[in-house]
């Protein structure tokens, strides 16, 4: 079977696992919301919160990403399924794309909830003029995060100390997404008088990031998961 067919199978399987186990809904979403509440405790100032809301939303996304990626690969290693996928002759590129796709879908749900939390808790206001930019930002940034998450999650999957290794490897890499997505979101929301036109250059960076890690991951995933 070609890589795309495998990718669809793997993505459908991952989403079905999520649908049956409800780990994202019952555990990750509450965790992410809790992080948002903790930020409010730490900053303790309504104006500051509104000012930094875009950054906090993306920061909470990064933390949740770590959890979701761990879960995504725990499913594969719990009963030797990753080995079985390799013995099944499944192309690593297909596994990579499929797991990225499933991660993308889960992150999209997560981000919707976090954005809602920001509106409620941080008094973030959405403007009609920034909607196109906001949606584009989310698609571009989330795609990049999904690729990076799958790439490093696969590397750490079989390793000793994977729980600590994954954040060490992944957080420096996603820094450009944190910066770019935060700035673009600020522009879309009009935080501190920013206008949507300020945000579009950042979209370029986010797309470049997603493209590079998408291609890099498709090529390299096989040698990272191979024992």
């Amino acid at each position: 079977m070609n890589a795309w067919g495998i990718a669809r199978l793997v993505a459908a399987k991952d989403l079905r696992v999520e649908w049956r186990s409800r780990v994202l809904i019952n555990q990750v979403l509450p965790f992410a919301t809790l992080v948002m509440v903790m930020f409010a405790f730490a900053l303790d100032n309504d104006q500051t919160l509104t000012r930094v809301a875009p950054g906090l939303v993306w920061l909470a996304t990064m933390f949740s990403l770590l959890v979701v990626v761990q879960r995504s690969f725990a499913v594969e290693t719990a009963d030797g399924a990753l080995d079985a996928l390799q013995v099944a002759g499944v192309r690593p590129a297909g596994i990579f794309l499929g797991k990225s796709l499933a991660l993308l879908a889960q992150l999209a749900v997560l981000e919707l909830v976090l954005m809602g939390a920001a509106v409620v808790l941080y008094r973030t206001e959405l403007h009609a003029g920034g909607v196109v930019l906001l949606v584009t930002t989310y698609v571009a940034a989330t795609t990049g995060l999904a690729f990076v998450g799958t790439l490093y999650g696969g590397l750490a999957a079989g390793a000793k100390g994977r729980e600590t290794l994954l954040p060490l490897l992944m957080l420096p890499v996603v820094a450009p997404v944190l910066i770019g997505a935060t700035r673009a979101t600020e522009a879309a929301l009009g935080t501190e008088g920013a206008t949507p036109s300020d945000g579009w250059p950042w979209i370029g960076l986010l797309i470049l990031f997603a493209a590079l890690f998408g291609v890099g991951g498709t090529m390299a995933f096989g040698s990272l998961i191979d024992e």
Partner: protein
Amino acid sequence: MRLVDVVAVLGGFPALAGASLTVERGEIVLLRGPNGAGKTSLLRLCAGLLAVERGQATVLGCDLTLDRAAVRRRVGLLGHANGLYADLTVGDNVRFWGDTVGATEREIAASMERMGLANRLMDVPVGRLSAGQRRRTALACLVARRAELWLLDEPHAGLDAAGRDELDQTLRAAAAAGATVMVASHELERAGALASRVVEVVGGQVRGAA
């Protein structure tokens, strides 16, 4: 399949220490030997999961020292782990593993029937099954794969009498259809009756492999 003086390393330890073994197509070979002798490693090596450190290994005409990926899609491995997704149902699991090798609906249904997975189990999540039922599910996934080389690690463990009979019949049918079968087992009486040849694995080497 032909292994010559193969050494394979697992975490710095030579799990295989110069194993040589030749198996012809259609044979059912039983591997026996004490725990830690290297039976599991031998099976994983043949499946292309374990790297060949030294020596030569050719499986199904593919040189494992050059390309392990080529052999993988033609073998089926049932290891200690079942390779199942605990949150998915029996039906979902078998269908997923069948789909990865492009098996048809009918083949998938037939393989489930073959392993005696009754309809009432179809919609039960694997995580809620007993060890024996999980083993049956994993075997059904294996049957759906239509492998040319079957590698089974303690397949009888956890199965009830009916399950063992079904497994034996399945393996005989596969061998009759031209597939090669290698079974590692401690259940000598049962597996011995099944096997066309018995070899002993001791200290990472194969004895009686002539």
